């Protein structure tokens, strides 16, 4: 139940942007699947702002909100052996877990 007004970090990405999922180590908790880490995808949708999971999981309610995005990946980029060219996968990630891909 988010309060009406929350400080939110500015969104760094918009639909169509190419982004890479950060490759951070695992420790204690994550909502960023291993299979997307280090992989480049495209922002499909800007969804909502909220705490990042790493903050919410320890109830750090005063932490800033940030933008979440639905990211679209090509299955061939996720799994080296994937045989079907067109297939895709989407999942949702917060701003902190993404870095820009230039060119």
């Amino acid at each position, binding site marked *: *139940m988010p309060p009406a007004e929350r400080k939110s970090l500015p969104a760094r990405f918009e639909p169509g942007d190419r982004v890479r999922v950060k490759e951070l180590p*695992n*420790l204690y908790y994550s*909502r960023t*699947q*291993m*299979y997307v880490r280090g992989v480049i995808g495209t922002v499909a949708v800007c969804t909502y702002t909220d705490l990042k999971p790493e903050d919410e999981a*320890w109830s750090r309610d005063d932490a800033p909100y940030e933008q979440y995005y639905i990211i679209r990946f090509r299955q061939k980029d996720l799994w080296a052996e994937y045989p079907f060219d067109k297939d895709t996968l989407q999942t949702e990630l917060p701003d902190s877990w993404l870095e820009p891909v230039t060119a």
Partner: protein
Amino acid sequence: MPSRSDLKRLYDVGAQLAPMTHQQQDWPYEISPDAYKAYLQPPHDVGGQASGPSVFEEKEEELWELNTYVTCEVLGWKGVWNSEERRRIGNNDLGASLYYGFPYYGRWIWAAARMLVDKKHISLMELLEKIAEVKARHAAG
């Protein structure tokens, strides 16, 4: 109180929970970087792991499962915990053995009990006494 033979049976079951690697795992002096990563990967992050074909059967819900779902949700409704805390405790903090060894809602209620103790809403002794009391009440019919 478990009898001595009951206790031996419990020990035998417990011994079988060791992960199925083919190495002794009683506190190794060091482990490989891959083993370190594997141990720290949250047990719920299973997407992409290999598994064989499955029978995707339906399951009828037990009353205690519905009650568990509702209890956990109402604790969320009342702000006692948030969903990410629930996911952390019930999917990660319990470790791989319980993650795979417990029923789905068994993890949920384990997490709720753990949270109530961690957040000091109840003491562990209160919880233990209550479990024993409920058990005795049901044994008495």
